[in-house]
């Protein structure tokens, strides 16, 4: 990335500091809560880092079988590592796969070891999980090497295209074609239901609804295919998937192990839009972000979702608040600025007067607040009507706003949004649209300086002020953000902390809790 001057809005630095302070105050109790709990998925992710893969004949992953069996004996509150490696060092099985199979058959009695036994189990688990983390480190170095060899895209924004056939073997040629056509980033959309499945399916999959399952094999196959494309094209093509839903920590671990480059990973999306239990989400979030930080993965946050369910003008400040919270949670988990693909979207009703100026104001606000973050700019979906001609124009304006405000990652809009899954020709036309705008106006960001007290600047300042109001309203709740989520302050959905999917997978840590992955990830 060549450094260049970013367009920006004049914001009062004290106001910006105030916004960040409030976000920190809202986020800090959540971090405390996350540290006090673990989840079934965090523990399964630990086993995955230790190298346990595969599934039983019914397709239930061995990590699930093992965690379920150990939990039935000794609970989850001490973590999975103590009982599992205690069983290994005491000779109940030779290795993790053997132990999982024996446990699934009911042939293992788990216990929480104490004293020297506990120390032995800790040390054995740490050794094995450390090997997995070293693999993640090696994949990160490999990425750095390949980027050095093949190079980053010569242009900004990076062009992000989606494939979603449901069949990994169909996705691969489509992704390679998209890369040839100009995509810098390929995102494989997940099967619709995956976020609510409490296990990660195993193997290469050919059956998905509106997307392809995220599995370790699918990750590996697609990364290998894009490496081949990168070599041919002479630029490193990045791969994106989704670390969200009930298995977020495990998918993050698999992404690190298989060198995925970006992961969708939002702090509150699962709570608000998928009705996943808030505690579960925040615990899983923190762990998955620690893994992403270690793996050098860029996260993409999901602020576009606020605008697809609420009015994009009225709810503009909810995007800013979510970005600030995502930033706080991400940095607390160890992610750096260059890894924060904070999201926002072009979703204002085109019938609203000055809609384009409003879009510019919102986009510039994000650009100014997060000057070092690779912002992700998402195309119109809500006001794509099926009139593909009008949609093509709207996508052109979306691209122009992206160019003028120096966005980093541009998700390419399709004129057939809301009509069909994109055709070959839709993608080609969409890329022509992007190329024309970037070629014609890509450097306009250098000249575009909104009048200090003009409409755009004033609108941006107003959205920031509304964000501060919302953060203050959140903090006025007795239990801050958790209560605000519960009573519908944030988004329109009411999500109490003691309800939602995945709650049964949450456990409060006991005093002797041990997780080598967390220890290792927090050491640096």
């Amino acid at each position: 990335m060549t450094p260049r001057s970013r367009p920006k809005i004049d914001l009062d630095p004290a106001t910006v500091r105030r916004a960040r302070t409030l976000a920190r105050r809202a986020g800090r109790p959540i971090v405390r809560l996350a540290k006090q709990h673990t989840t079934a998925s965090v523990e399964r992710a630990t086993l995955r880092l230790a190298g346990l893969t595969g599934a039983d004949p019914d397709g239930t992953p061995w990590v699930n079988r093992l965690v379920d069996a150990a939990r039935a004996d000794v609970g989850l509150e001490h973590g999975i590592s103590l009982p599992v490696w205690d069983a290994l060092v005491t000779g109940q099985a030779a290795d993790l796969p053997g132990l999982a199979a024996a446990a699934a058959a009911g042939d293992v009695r788990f216990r929480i070891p104490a004293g020297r036994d506990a120390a032995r189990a800790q040390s054995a688990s740490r050794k094995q999980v450390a090997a997995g983390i070293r693999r993640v480190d090696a994949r990160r170095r490999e990425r750095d090497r390949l980027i050095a060899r093949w190079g980053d895209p010569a242009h900004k924004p990076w062009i992000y295209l989606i494939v979603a056939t449901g069949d990994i073997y169909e996705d691969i040629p489509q992704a390679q074609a998209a890369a040839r056509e100009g995509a810098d980033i390929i995102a494989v959309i997940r099967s619709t239901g995956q976020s609510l499945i409490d296990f990660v399916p195993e193997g290469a999959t050919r059956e998905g609804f509106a997307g392809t399952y995220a599995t370790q094999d699918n990750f590996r196959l697609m990364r290998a295919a894009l490496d081949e494309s990168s070599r041919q094209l002479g630029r490193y093509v990045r791969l994106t998937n989704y670390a969200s839903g009930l298995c977020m920590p495990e998918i993050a671990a698999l992404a690190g192990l298989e060198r995925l480059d970006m992961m969708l990973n939002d702090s509150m999306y699962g709570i608000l839009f998928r009705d996943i239990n808030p505690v579960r989400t925040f615990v899983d979030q923190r762990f998955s972000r620690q893994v992403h930080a270690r793996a050098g993965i860029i996260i993409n946050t999901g602020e576009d979702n606020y605008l697809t369910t609420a009015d994009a003008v009225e709810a503009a400040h909810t995007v800013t608040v979510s970005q600030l919270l995502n930033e706080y949670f991400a940095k607390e988990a160890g992610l750096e600025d260059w890894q924060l693909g904070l999201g926002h979207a072009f979703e204002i009703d085109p019938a609203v007067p000055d809609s384009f100026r409003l879009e510019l104001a919102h986009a510039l606000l994000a650009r100014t607040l997060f000057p070092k973050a690779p912002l992700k700019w998402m195309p119109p979906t809500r006001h794509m009507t099926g009139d593909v001609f009008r949609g093509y124009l709207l996508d052109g304006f979306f691209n122009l706003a992206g160019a003028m405000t120096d966005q980093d990652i541009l998700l390419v809009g399709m004129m057939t949004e809301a009509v069909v899954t994109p055709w070959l020709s839709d993608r080609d036309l969409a890329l022509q649209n992007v190329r024309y705008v970037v070629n014609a106006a890509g450097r306009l960001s250098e000249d575009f300086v909104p009048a200090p007290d003009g409409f755009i600047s004033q609108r941006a300042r107003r959205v920031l002020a509304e964000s501060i109001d919302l953060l203050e309203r959140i903090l006025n709740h007795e239990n801050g953000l958790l209560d605000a989520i519960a009573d519908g302050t944030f988004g329109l959905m009411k999500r109490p902390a003691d309800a939602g999917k995945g709650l049964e997978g949450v456990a409060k840590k006991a005093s002797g809790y041990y997780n080598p992955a967390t220890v290792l990830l927090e050491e640096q």
Partner: protein
Amino acid sequence: MSASERSRSPAAQQGVIRPYGDTTGDGMVQLSFTLPMPHGKRAEGAAAQLANKMGIDPALVVHAKPMGPDFTFFVVYGRANHLVDVSAVEILEREYPLLTPKEVNVAVKRALRRRLVVVGGCIGTDAHTVGIDAILNIKGFAGEKGLEYYRELRVVNLGAQLSVPDLVARAKEESADAVLVSQVVTQRNAHILNTLEMSAAFREAYPADQRPVLIIGGPRFEERQAATLGVDRVFTRGTTPGEVASYLVHELITRERATHAAKRGLG
């Protein structure tokens, strides 16, 4: 009215028309498509041949562009030689009047003497709440406020990825008069299968005369599918909250009258 206009009006009344480019009766249409062959003269000829077979003659291949080595994209303009017989078009005419929110409120109050309860959500794995939100959220759609805006309607929006048993349970708990379900994802006919599961569950859980009005909505349904899907009404693309509210009033008040009539021994 000029002589020429008068002379063509009988045809229009009988309902035989052609596409209109810039002159009445010119039959001009445009289409675009991709053929899996390399760009070149032969490809353009192939595009013209397809257009001819579709009834477009003459066909003008105005744009041909290679998309990679193996595909070519075309834009074709031409004269369609088919006629459209408007009188033979079959549609489902709306059988109820469109009411304003105020009229809906008055009608509900008068007929039910309580608020009408609407429970809605997206079932199955479908996470697209766009449709249900457009109808239910106060924000609404196409300039019309959603059902939450209607004082005499009580709306329970259950959001996305709802299981059918949960939907039935909540409908009972809330004493729903109507259940609205939206389905956007259509891969492998998920929308049809989910809807069949939903309507079967409601038939099982309720006596026939107490079952709430079942409404399904989504861009890929057809209005005439209601009976085969086991629901009372199908709404498709472009439906506004006002249409749904007006339908609810029509349907529930008709039902209410039928029940009263039955109770009085007149039915």
